[in-house]
């Protein structure tokens, strides 16, 4: 078949297909079965045109059509509550358990400095001053001082909503950066983990030593269930990505990086959901000074149990 006859025979089909594609790309409803049938014909035409070395303008036209249809047909559209539910019930906890070694490493990198800084800050006033300057420490003391309506705030004027916005913007932002920085051989994530561990430990130890523990501990007990796990998981995701290409095994480094990033993404999703819940609790529940510490501790125990049960137990059996 000559190029001219080819074009004369299939040209009308290509025109119809192009028109249908532009309609579909504007979001208008089109006959999907017809579109799919025409797509297959056009792919067939493209393969023929390429193998027969037809003129380039012809091949390019078919290529453009196939490309646009490709983008339209294979775009993922199954977003919805069902997918989200499945993600939360099974996929995320499973992914976290599958990366258990990275999570453990992140936990060690976070918890050891935290415990160390806590003990050191508890034993004397010097250690906390190595990490924070005196003004910052005074601010922390003011935040957890007695007789305030909402604990954990510098200014009384800040409302729950403002703090919620701040926690989302700041804490989840840190979680995402902790993951992103992991590509630098995991160093970025390790730094964020160790630094935050030291800081949290030092502040906790300092406030306890200063006699403000009765305000501090009820405040942090509940949302820490979500926030600390969130930090550890985003750090674990970063470590997974960084160590993935550092020790690629039998893959090329690039391939290993791609695989590692793919494995790490569910961990970031998990960290994101945990940090979001943490922000809600921190803004609306933890700060309420009128709730008795006993109640807060009970809820905190419940939350820690729930989070650990979710991460360790959810999605273990195939529910059919």
């Amino acid at each position, binding site marked *: 078949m*000559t*190029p*001219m*006859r080819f074009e004369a025979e299939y040209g009308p089909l290509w025109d119809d297909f192009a028109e249908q594609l532009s309609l579909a*790309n504007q*979001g208008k409803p089109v006959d999907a079965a017809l579109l799919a049938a025409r797509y297959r014909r056009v792919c067939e035409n493209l393969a023929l045109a*390429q193998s*027969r*070395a*037809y*003129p*380039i*303008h012809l091949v*390019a036209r078919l*290529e*453009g059509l*196939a*490309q646009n249809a*490709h*983008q*339209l047909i*294979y*775009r*993922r559209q199954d*977003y919805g509550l069902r997918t989200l539910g499945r993600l939360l019930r099974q996929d995320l906890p499973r992914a976290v358990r599958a990366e258990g070694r990275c999570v453990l490493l992140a936990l060690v990198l976070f918890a050891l400095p935290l415990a160390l800084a806590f003990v050191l800050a508890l034993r004397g006033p010097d250690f906390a001053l190595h990490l924070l300057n005196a003004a910052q420490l005074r601010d922390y003391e003011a935040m957890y001082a007695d007789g305030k309506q909402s604990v954990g705030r510098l200014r009384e*004027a*800040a*409302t*729950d*909503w*403002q*703090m*919620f*916005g*701040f926690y*989302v*913007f700041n804490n*989840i*932002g840190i979680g*995402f*950066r902790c*993951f*992103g*920085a*992991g*590509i*630098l051989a995991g160093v*970025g994530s390790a730094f964020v983990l160790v630094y935050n561990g030291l800081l949290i430990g030092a502040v906790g130890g300092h406030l306890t030593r200063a006699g403000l523990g009765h305000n501090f501990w009820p405040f942090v007990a509940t949302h820490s269930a979500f926030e600390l796990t969130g930090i550890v998981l985003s750090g674990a995701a970063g470590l997974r*990505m960084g160590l993935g290409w550092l020790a690629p095994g039998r893959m090329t480094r*690039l391939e290993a*990086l*791609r695989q*590692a*990033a*793919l494995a*790490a*993404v569910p961990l*970031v*999703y998990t960290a994101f959901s945990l940090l979001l819940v943490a922000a809600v609790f921190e803004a609306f529940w933890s700060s309420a000074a009128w709730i008795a510490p006993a109640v807060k501790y009970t809820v905190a125990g419940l939350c820690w149990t729930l989070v650990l049960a979710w991460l360790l137990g959810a999605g273990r059996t195939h529910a059919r």
Partner: protein
Amino acid sequence: MLSLQPAGLVSRTMAFLLDLLIRLGIDLGLLMLLSSLGGLGNGLILLGMFCVEWLYPIVFELSRWGATPGKRSLGLRVVMDTGLPVTPAASFTRNMLRVADFLPLAYAFGIVAMLLNRECKRLGDLAAGTLVVHADPVVLHDALPPGAPLAPARPLDSREQAAILSWAGRAKRLTPARFEELAQLAAPVLPPASPDEPSRDAAPRLLGVAQWLMGRRA
């Protein structure tokens, strides 16, 4: 097989700057609209800024256009290495890794990475397995100019046919002198010129051969 044309540093930088402007505009709009609402307003501003910073590129890349408004206005599109539309996990990865691309300042790592590989990928693209491509590839070949068909002196194999057709498709873009010069290379396949022919040039007669190859007969 589909061919993809990766976008270069300049067009991607332009797209980024456009997006930056749009994002700053949204942030300013939020500030002006909501700052009078007190604590609730401030909370919403911060939530909005979070969404604009982190979710804006992801949402737009997963949309029908496969590109943020900035990329779209420059004719760019984000796709997987395979040419498939970008997946949620890949879009998420490439946008989270902006953090690493930005280091040590002003996207230095990202720019170096883009200049060092053939497909112009920044670190985020390398990890996510994504490409930023021109949505509508540039085609430098037009339809063949008209002419009377002329049978070649001998049968041509497919490579020779393809070369002559490609040459004819560039008629509008080459200077007449260069067009003729290239046609001279194919002079052996032209049939001997009849004595009453007005022009001795090879180009018009090779165009005739191209028309003959396209399937036109006298």
